[in-house]
């Protein structure tokens, strides 16, 4: 039987995937009540547990896909790094005012930039996303449970955030279709409206 040839990118991604798979049993396997497993699931579920976090992370991916290269890959690299600064501040107990307002504002603003097809230059896009990333990271850091495994929790929360970005990027690829831009603009509007609703819930 003759096997079909594969290209270099497929090969490299397969290797990276294999490495990730290899690590899974170490994190999620035996003794999950210890420092590894329980912390990982707690951290992994944390960004998925709040609608505001989910919408903001997916919106970052969507916006990156709309902006195209290089923003589509710089944003997912920059976001976890900047978000970590916020998380570090939260873990250390440093004060950051209006965290919840910052988070729901990120939902409103990121939905809005998608809805109005705002296309700034790359540095400005990174600054906008980074500004909101600090609030999201802070919320994750300050809520780090005392009894959670630090490594597991951090890994889970970073991986979940990254996967949400990727989901947004994949969904954002729809903009290449003839009707895709309209769909994305509608999605952005829906995110903004949801953000405004969350803001109303927060203050009224």
């Amino acid at each position: 039987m003759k096997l079909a040839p594969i290209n270099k990118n497929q090969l490299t991604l397969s290797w990276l995937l294999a490495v990730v798979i290899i690590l899974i049993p170490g994190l999620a396997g035996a003794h999950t009540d210890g420092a590894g497993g329980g912390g990982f699931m707690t951290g992994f579920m944390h960004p998925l547990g709040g609608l505001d976090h989910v919408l903001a992370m997916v919106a970052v991916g969507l916006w990156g896909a709309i902006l195209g290269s290089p923003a589509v890959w710089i944003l997912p690299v920059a976001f976890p790094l900047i978000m970590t600064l916020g998380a570090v501040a939260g873990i250390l107990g440093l004060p950051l005012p209006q965290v919840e307002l910052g988070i729901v504002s990120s939902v409103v603003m990121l939905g809005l930039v998608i809805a109005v097809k705002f296309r700034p230059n790359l540095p400005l896009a990174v600054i906008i996303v980074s500004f909101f990333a600090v609030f999201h990271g802070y919320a994750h850091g300050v809520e780090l449970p005392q009894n959670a495994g630090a490594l597991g929790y951090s890994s889970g929360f970073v991986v979940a955030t990254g996967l949400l970005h990727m989901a947004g990027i994949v969904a954002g690829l729809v903009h290449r279709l003839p009707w895709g831009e309209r769909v994305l603009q509608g999605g952005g509007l829906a995110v903004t409206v949801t953000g405004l609703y969350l803001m109303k819930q927060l203050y009224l």
Partner: protein
Amino acid sequence: MMKEPILRRYMSVLVFAGGALWPSSAMAHLRVSDSALFSGIIQPFTHVEGTILLLVLSLWAGCAVRSRVILLRFCLGGLAGGMLLGGMLAPDAMAKMSLAVVILTLGMGLAVAADRPGPGKLAVILTPIAGFILGGFWREGLEFGVKTTLFFMLGLAVSATALAAVVMAAAFFARGRVARIGVRILASWACAVSAMLLAYWYRSGPY
């Protein structure tokens, strides 16, 4: 497009991944005294702090050597040798070892994420040092005799070097744009995790 030899290598990676998954069903409740060699082999899959450094170190070395395969071989050899030496000779200082692991992960992760891995010769110098720290870190707290420690470290060096070889090769061959982005995103994740660990360390002491 690549032909048969690459496909065979591809299959071997899959076999390696399958093999690595197999101990997950059997590693629970394994006592160190049962088999020092086997305990060494599974150590990188059960003490993930060190494994994250190993992965980031491998990504970094694979990027830093660029197209010079000879440097990659030096890195792998240095890593294995450093780990063996670290396991046998490193001082008993768990907290300092853990801190060194986290700081190295942060630095190397940043270098890869920013696509500034530095010169290949630096990788040749730093991989044995990182290997020494990793060896000491993974052996830490295990009260073995010299002979048992040697078997344990041999098992550890084999599995950790095999894992590092796969990741180094992935980073080395990651010439395509998508693959390079994947490498940088993985490094940024590792970097974020280690920064949080440092903060946690500062707040609560060794995790």
